[in-house]
């Protein structure tokens, strides 16, 4: 499903160059739940952003479903992210002026669904994560765990091929973390491909594979 070949990522700050990824080769198969681990600053999130088309690698090639996504135009990448990928961020990344259901609706509307259709899908998605009763709450009226669950509902509402999660439990208490992981497990059971960056070793127990990033390289 995802094939990354010789991915490098170098950040420049004036004359200083930081080589974060130094030729990463990975493959992720359809339906796999893959964890990316590594020390702080190792380049876990950087790799996730490259795979999730949120950033451009300095060099290398990424193919998703045999499509060369690295050579896509900005508009095509946006469209690809909209239709094929889902994202869950560490800090939930909900839009503060939109209610829970409105946050889920936005990408669906962008896909061309009517507001009525989008609302029905969003409600079903919120129902899956047990938050349909709080669909009209603004993010500020939800707990951290609830916000992350809304974020998951938004990420999976349009049935993405791959779900990218960047330390989804980092800001949550243990109870909320477990709830989020339970959702991930259920999604994985239903066949969802998931790529998750995490610090927590115990969360990798549910994963099919663990990729460790160290010294800019990927190891299994």
């Amino acid at each position, binding site marked *: 499903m995802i094939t990354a070949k010789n991915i490098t990522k170098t950040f420049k700050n004036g004359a200083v160059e930081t080589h974060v990824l130094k030729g990463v080769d990975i493959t992720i198969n359809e339906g796999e739940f893959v964890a990316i681990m590594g020390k702080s600053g190792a380049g876990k999130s950087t790799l996730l952003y490259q795979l999730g088309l949120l*950033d451009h690698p300095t060099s290398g090639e990424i193919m998703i479903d045999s499509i060369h996504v690295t050579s896509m135009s900005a508009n*095509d990448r946006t*469209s690809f*992210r909209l239709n094929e990928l889902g994202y869950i*961020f560490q800090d939930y990344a909900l839009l503060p002026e939109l209610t829970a259901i409105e946050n889920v609706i936005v990408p669906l*509307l*962008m896909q*061309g669904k009517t507001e009525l259709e989008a609302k029905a899908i969003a409600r079903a998605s919120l129902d899956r994560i047990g938050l349909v009763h709080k669909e009209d709450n603004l993010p500020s009226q939800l707990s951290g765990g609830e916000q992350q669950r809304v974020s998951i509902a938004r*990420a999976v509402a349009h049935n993405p091929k791959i779900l990218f999660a960047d330390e989804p439990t980092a800001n949550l208490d243990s109870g909320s973390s477990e709830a989020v992981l339970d959702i991930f497990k259920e999604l994985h059971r239903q066949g969802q491909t998931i790529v998750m960056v995490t610090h927590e070793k115990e969360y990798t127990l549910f994963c099919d594979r663990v990729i460790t990033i160290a010294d800019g390289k990927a190891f299994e």
Partner: protein
Amino acid sequence: MASLGQSIKVGLFLGTRQLRRANRSTTILIVSIMTFTFLNLVVVSGILIGLIEGGNIANRNQYTGDVIATTLSGKTAIDHSQDFISTIARDPQVTDFSARYLAGGSIEANYRTRTDFSSKANTVGGQVAGIDPVQEDEFSSISKYVVEGKFLDPTESGYVVIGSNLLDRYSSSFGDGFDSLKNVYPGSTVKITINGSTREFIVKGIVKSKVGEVSIRAFLSKPDFIQLAGRSDLNANEIALNHDATITDNQMKQRLIANGFNANAKIQTASEAIPDFLTQIKTAFSVLGNLIGAIGIVVGSITIFIVVFINAVTRQKFIGILKGIGVSPLAIQVSYLLQSLFYGISGSLLGSLILYGLLVPAFDAHPIDFPFSDGILVADVPTTIVRIVVLLIVTLIAGYIPARMIIKKNTLDSILGR
């Protein structure tokens, strides 16, 4: 790729919710700024133009009417005036008119009590007008402007109403270069001389108007004037008329010309009778008003720019998230344009409401007391609409630029706030 329609739909979805859930105080502040920008744009130039327009309206109401016929150059009066008068009197579209008989003359006061004949007599030169008091009052409501005493009574003879500018207590501001009568009040006796013929009149009243032709004349009843001036031909010097709304000034003028009256009189519409310098001042004030308005627009657009820029910068992360989850940059721009448009439309609507609901009626009821006119607020609807459109276009541009600047940033940099 997302279609234009989808982008607009999502943009409107986001924009309406951002507006609905925005901080109310901030929204009120921005709309207030836009309202004042709109008012600055319309009212400042409206008052400057209204300063002259107020004078023009007064000139029309009290002097020229809608159309005025005056003596041709080189003539002493309008020949065959009675034909002219009888024609307009029969015209069903003429609502009222006044024929005025004019002559240069002098007025002397306090001559009975004068003891020092070595000093200058208490005298002033001016234009003496013979009028039909009833006809003139119906035409120009001149009696409303009588500030002391009363207006002429058509049944009486031997009375004069004097324009305030001929009296020193009203015209002192003009400086010493102008002669004026001292110690003249209603009841005073004055001597009026026209073409060497002199007669005493009792001052019936003082008329004060910002229309020069009213306040600089001495008014006698027509019989008194004809007797004093020896005008037996009954030819008038000015014939001013008003018409109803079914005909324009120019159409009425053309009708009079078609009757051949232009052979004996200079026929002008009220607008044509406005002196050139006033038209030029009006144009200059209009330019000045537009200039001040343009500064207002720049200030308003900078305000919108700053508001949208700060809004976009503080929401940079969320803009990045929107782009990250696949929302097109156009949709995000539409959401910001909608906000700018909302501020612009709200400001314009609120401004229009204040303008037409409050300011224009207030200025009409209480014009600004300028020395040479009663300044009104001129805000005709087509011009106001043009200014609203200008304001909205500028507002849209001011909203578009910062939104575009932020949206062009790298998606990940926006999300991570780098």
